[in-house]
């Protein structure tokens, strides 16, 4: 080893944001999801002009209340969705800086502090407008474009921060706009009869939430001064139910090896299923995704060249690194085929939706958010997914500022190893703060896990 510094090559210190992998891109993403990207971009552009169009705007976080908002003729801004969008576009900086300046510490949920930063910028814009100042807040900055709310609705499952975050947004706006809280208890799963979608706790809790949703609708009627359109809600849920069925059917096709689509394609499809307007276009989107996957299956087109390992992704998405991670895993012949965030979320049990009683099915879905279960149910779901998709290993995204997703991970890793002999590794990152991502941690962990899997396979051959 030479200690002569003059002969050393300079080290590449660019962030993963500013460089691309040297290796050949072995990933093969679905092209149909690009339609979703366009839908989402148009959705946000539309939101930005809501006030000019004289629309009522609701800010909300957490669960997918949008079918209710849509039926009420509102425009809806989902806080996490906007934070994720900023992060995915690498435009989160100004919002996070505004949040930091306001006083939010960097260890706070990065979804929350990005969105709170947006709130600070929007509030500043209102104040400046009232004071007759124009243009102090840079209107070109995407983070500052959210229209101010007419009211807030909070319905956050599984994470105490979710409810407190909206309470703080309410305060950032000087408590000038009303807020409605829907309280979603955790499905703790402590009773002997407890399990996923079963047991007395499961039977009882959605009824309590359904009653709150009725009160929410009364609140919205009061705010909008309009009677709620129940038929529109049923119609919205019809589209969501159908879109969800298609999504699940398409996901099921990915049990095939090699897989025709990956977790990253499902990540790209989160926004449509989570907050896009419920209409035929939504159904068409998922029909298109399913058709492409079916086409790939029929023509033996795989999502990763030379798929050698099938991996499950546990943790919330690292939105700054979607493209990077897609290529990174593929580089090692890894197909990430399923994940807790994509497969155990977002209207994932469409059979629960009864169009004649839509609120109950909605309440049930809000409660089966993948961070709202006790450990026992989490373990049940993990093993089920591993069996369905023939999983060889698990990548645990140890999400620095998302304790809700991180909570059960260490024990889930042990459960997978004990119950199925499935290897796993942890890597550090975050939902919307690129500073926490450690590329070396991912790479060394992934390589070590793959070597373990190789050894397992060798032993199995002996």
């Amino acid at each position, binding site marked *: 080893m030479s200690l002569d510094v003059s002969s050393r090559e300079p080290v590449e210190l660019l962030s993963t944001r500013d460089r691309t992998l040297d290796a050949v891109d072995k990933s093969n993403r679905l092209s149909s999801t690009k339609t979703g990207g366009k839908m989402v971009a148009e959705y946000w552009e539309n939101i930005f002009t809501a006030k000019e169009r004289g629309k009522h705007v609701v800010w909300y976080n957490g669960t997918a209340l949008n079918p209710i908002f849509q039926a009420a003729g509102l425009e809806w801004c989902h806080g996490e969705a906007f934070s994720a969008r900023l992060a995915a576009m690498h435009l989160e900086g100004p919002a996070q800086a505004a949040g930091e300046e306001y006083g939010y510490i960097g*260890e706070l949920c990065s979804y929350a502090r990005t969105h709170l930063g947006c709130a600070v910028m929007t509030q500043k814009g209102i104040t400046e407008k009232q004071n007759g100042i124009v243009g102090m807040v840079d209107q070109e900055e995407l983070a500052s474009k959210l229209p101010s709310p007419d009211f807030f609705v909070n319905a956050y499952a599984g*994470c*105490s921060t979710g409810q*407190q975050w909206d309470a703080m947004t309410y305060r950032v706006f000087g408590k000038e706009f009303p807020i409605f809280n829907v*309280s979603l208890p*955790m499905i703790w799963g402590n009773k002997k009869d407890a399990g996923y979608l079963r047991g007395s706790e499961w039977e009882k809790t959605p009824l309590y939430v359904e009653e709150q949703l009725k009160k929410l609708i009364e609140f919205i009627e009061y705010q909008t001064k309009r009677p709620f359109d129940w038929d529109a809600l049923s119609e919205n849920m019809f589209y969501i139910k159908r879109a969800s069925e298609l999504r699940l059917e398409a996901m099921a096709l990915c049990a095939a090896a090699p897989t025709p689509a990956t977790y990253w394609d499902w990540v790209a499809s989160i926004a449509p299923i989570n907050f896009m307007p419920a209409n035929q276009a939504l159904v068409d989107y998922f029909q298109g995704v399913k058709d492409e996957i079916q086409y790939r299956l029929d023509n033996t087109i795989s999502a990763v060249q030379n798929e050698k390992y099938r991996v499950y992704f546990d943790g919330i998405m690292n939105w700054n690194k979607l493209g990077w991670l897609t290529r990174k895993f593929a580089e090692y012949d890894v197909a990430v085929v399923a994940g807790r965030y994509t497969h155990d979320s977002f209207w994932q049990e469409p059979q629960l939706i009864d169009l004649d009683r839509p609120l109950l099915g909605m309440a049930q879905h809000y409660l089966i958010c993948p961070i709202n279960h006790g*450990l026992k149910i989490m373990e049940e779901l993990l093993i089920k997914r591993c069996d369905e998709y023939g999983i060889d290993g698990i990548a645990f995204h140890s999400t620095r500022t998302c*304790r809700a997703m991180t909570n059960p991970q260490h*024990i889930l890793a042990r459960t997978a190893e004990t119950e199925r002999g499935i290897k796993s590794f942890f890597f550090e990152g975050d939902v919307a703060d690129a500073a926490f991502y450690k590329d070396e941690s991912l790479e060394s962990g992934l390589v070590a896990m793959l070597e373990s899997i190789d050894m397992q396979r060798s032993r199995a051959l002996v």
Partner: protein
Amino acid sequence: MLDENAFATQDAFATLAVAATDPVGYAQSWKARTGRLVIGSFPMNFPSELTHATGALPVIIQESRTTITEGRSLLPEFYCSYTRSLADQAAVGELDVFDAFVLADHCVQLLGAVDVIRWAKPQIPTHFAQFISSMDDPWSQGQVIDKIASLRVEVEEIVGTTITPEALAHSIRLYNENRRLLREFYDLRKAGRVRITASQMQTLVKSSMVMDIEEHTALLRDILADLESRAGEPGQDATGSLVRIHLSGHFCAPPRPELLDVIEECGALVINDDLYHGFRYISTDVPEDVDPFDALALWYLDRNISAPCGTRVQRNVDWDSYLIGSLDESGADGVITLMAKFCEPLMLYYPELKKALDGHDIPVLLIETEHEGVAVESVRTRVETFVERIRRNKTAVPAVASGPILATN
């Protein structure tokens, strides 16, 4: 100062200090002495009266001072010190004295830690009845009443007894009396009649969370009687040169006593607090004039009005307004906010507190704490500077040419 060496106080305070320092040891000896069950609860809202009414010993499980070892592989490092300590205590067997665990709070990190306990100790019953955290909805009270009822069933089953309204009412009276006595210590301190250090106050409150409540109350009475016999007139203490400080924040687990001592060594006099291991815990009594089970629900809701908490949401109640009011009442010169690192409720609320304090020209200093302790000399420097800044402001010469001086009648 509360003289720990004074004859009448010495033994009593020492007993409280031992229990506060080693709650598990206290629980073990209580269990051996009485042959009864010990039920652990988690902060910050489980009503201990319910457990007490069964005859079991209610203990609020504390952060251990033990270095976290096994727990590191059960919860990530970016969890608060209390929850990481809980996971560690479960893994290394420090929680084995408990016959059951109960909780009512929904903090995401706490639930993660309790899930670890459930996993590590499957033979020990662990019950969670999630109290609604949105306090002023029309259904809030009914929801809490329902949860109290389900907790009642659970603890009755654990202990194998039935909680009668009379037994619960008796427990409520005992706990109310204990809280009332502890508030007397606060009143004496605020009035400047006695000097009780922040770490001593923590001992008084923390020991009440883990000890047999009647034993605790008897000891408090001894100490209080001694203190009152020696207390000065209001405002007559010899602490006039010290800067009067309100300690704020720190939920769930107590800040380390040595940190509190360092703060007071820097010329600060802690005269009030809203810490959980402080006034927040004892702020509110359970109503005695209604059905005792319903009274526990009312207590939970009342508490967020008496001492608003960042972990609850309520439209008509603000922690920041409460804090300003509390400072007005105590005459504190400044606020030191103690924040357990990674505590999300406090991270979320702190900017609102700071904004309110800044709006009233009240100096505030934020100190983050960790399980492993803090760099004492660094804290000392920061607190000394903070105290000095307040002193200077207090003695600043008023600006010349202000309106009223020049005004004529």
